[in-house]
């Protein structure tokens, strides 16, 4: 990630596809692991840990959506709803059957995958705009169903309180403890995605995205792979929803409305479509943006607006800046932050020499 190489010296496909392109990459990963497992949790204040925790959860969701939109080229405006499916599945299992998180988590993911495949079915017949509208309908229908079926939503205000997860007898009830829990899943999601996209499946996804007719001709069953993309992607979304539920201690459909779907789309567009690193950048950026904006506006805006208006102004600015960034990146840098990062890296590749 941070290492530089002086050129491309790969002679086999295996080395081209390797997770560690150079031996030094292992050291980079080891150093990152050391920073995130030891130094950050010991040296960083609880408040910043809570932000990192939100970023970890967002990374899981963004990676999932990027598999679908970035790698397979299918659009989904229904990911917020898939998250709510995971969240409510896990919440119901945890509260009614008293199941531990290592059962509810995959259960939530699998349920979301199932629903995701159903919503993704129209992708077999339609694409582009029609698929966008179909997934939008999926989002609204799932929202409505959860809100109107007390058996799922637990009745009062459609929210279910969930006990904190427990691991080896330790209740994960502080940001510090949740940090390791969430870090593990974020890392797992990153490694899993890296491996999916360099395997046969991932290459088939890219083929479907780039030229679906050509993909079919070279023997890729595109129906299967489109549905698989929806399944994998919604599995991630479901897991992301479960993590949100455990993090907040409550499953509430308002956490997973249409604007959440759009937040996650913003993440992958700003970060970079079709890139794992881009999903991570996007998740970091979009999670930090409202926090930075709030700090800025609370300091500057309090001179202009009354405190009552300020909350309104902050949420409005956040939304407007989001929209502006989506359009900006689409027009100016369609490959997102990841491309900027690559440009910086390739500049420093032979630095300080010109070539």
């Amino acid at each position, binding site marked *: 990630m941070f290492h530089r190489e002086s050129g491309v010296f790969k002679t086999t496909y295996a080395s081209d596809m390797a997770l560690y392109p150079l031996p030094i990459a292992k050291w980079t990963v080891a150093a990152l692991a050391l920073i995130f497992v030891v130094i950050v949790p010991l040296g960083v204040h609880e408040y910043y840990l809570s932000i990192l925790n939100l970023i970890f959860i967002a990374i899981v969701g963004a990676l999932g959506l990027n598999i679908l*939109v970035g790698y397979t*080229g299918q*659009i989904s*405006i229904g990911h917020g709803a898939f998250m709510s499916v995971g969240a409510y599945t896990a919440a119901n299992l945890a509260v009614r059957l008293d199941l531990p998180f290592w059962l509810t988590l995959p259960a939530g993911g699998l349920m979301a995958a199932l629903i995701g495949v159903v919503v993704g*079915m*129209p992708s077999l*017949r*339609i*694409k*582009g*705009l*029609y698929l*966008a*509208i*179909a997934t*939008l*309908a999926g989002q*609204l*229908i799932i929202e*409505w169903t959860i*809100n*109107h079926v007390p058996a799922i939503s637990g009745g009062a205000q459609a929210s279910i309180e969930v006990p904190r997860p427990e691991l080896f007898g330790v209740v994960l009830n502080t940001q510090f403890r949740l940090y390791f829990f969430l870090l593990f899943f974020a890392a797992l999601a990153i490694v899993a995605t890296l491996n999916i996209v360099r395997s046969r499946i991932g290459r088939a996804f890219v083929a479907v995205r780039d030229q*679906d*007719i050509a993909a*079919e001709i070279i023997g890729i069953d*595109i129906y299967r792979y489109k549905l698989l993309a929806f399944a994998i992607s919604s599995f991630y979304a479901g897991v992301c929803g479960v993590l949100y539920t455990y993090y907040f201690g409550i499953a509430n459909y308002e956490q997973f409305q249409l604007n959440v779907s*759009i937040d996650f*789309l*913003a993440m992958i*567009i700003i970060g970079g479509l079709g890139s794992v690193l881009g999903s991570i950048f996007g998740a970091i950026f979009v999670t930090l943006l409202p926090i930075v904006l709030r700090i800025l506006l609370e300091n500057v805006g309090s001179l202009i607006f009354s405190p009552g*208006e300020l909350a*309104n*102004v902050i*949420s*409005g*600015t*956040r*939304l*407007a*800046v*989001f*929209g*502006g*960034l*989506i*359009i900006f990146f*689409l*027009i100016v840098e*369609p490959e997102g932050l990841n491309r900027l990062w690559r440009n910086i890296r390739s500049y420093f590749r032979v630095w300080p020499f010109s070539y």
Partner: protein
Amino acid sequence: MGEDLEFAFALVLSGASIGLMYSLIALGFVLVYKATDAINFAQGEFVMMAGLIAAAVLAIEGAWLIAAVAATLAVMIGFGFGLERVVLRPLLGRPVVAVIMATIGLAAILRGLTPIFFGSGTRGVFLPIGDDPIVIGPATLPPIQVLGAVVTILFFLAFNWFFRKSRMGVAMRAVADNQQVAQAMGINVERYFALAWAMAGVVSALGGIIWGSMLGVDIQLALVGLKVFPVVILGGLDSIGGALVGGLIVGIVESLAAGYLDPYVGGGTKDFAPYVLMILVLMVRPYGIFGRRQIERV
């Protein structure tokens, strides 16, 4: 007529008048899609913006209604032209997903900026049409719904004339049909793209005034934009007549669902039924009732 039948008639009539008002908004979407192949996910926000402008002008002491309508039209037309130039033109030739995302981003911008500039309260757009319900057979309709239906029908007639008879309308149809050939015939394609967005602005301006005076203008008004999708999918994305028929169907289905199903499921079927209908249509006949059968299937 029996009591049941009267109830059904009232539901259908009220649904149809609301449906016609959906058609008006959907028309903006169809015009843009037909001419430029761009999908406008911000149609509801256009309507909200127009409603806010009308409400803001009317709030000035002694402002004429006609001034409010003119100001709204002017702003929305300018907005349509500007939008095409700044956002949509750089995205020409890019994948459809990029255009969809750009309009979603636009929707977010409009939604974020309006509470900052106009506050978060609900504003009213008061039209001098009175409040006495209009009685049609066993049904009664609020006058605003009747006005909305009439305006919609007039608009559709006007657009029908425009596309069939006027020079600009014919040129626009040519652009919609085949951009390259149109360009070869000396039509300035980009100008007609801009014109299509401006026309979407006109339609949204009237939609905003009518919907705004019915529901009151606040950020929730943008939600009528979500109803556009079932309407256009039902009618066919590139069909103006389809928008009319689709709107009627969605309005009536919604009203019947609310009348007959709400007592059993505890409300909200109104927002739900059109989408179920739409999913069914997407599965069976994705190009809609009147749309061109030019859907790419892989």
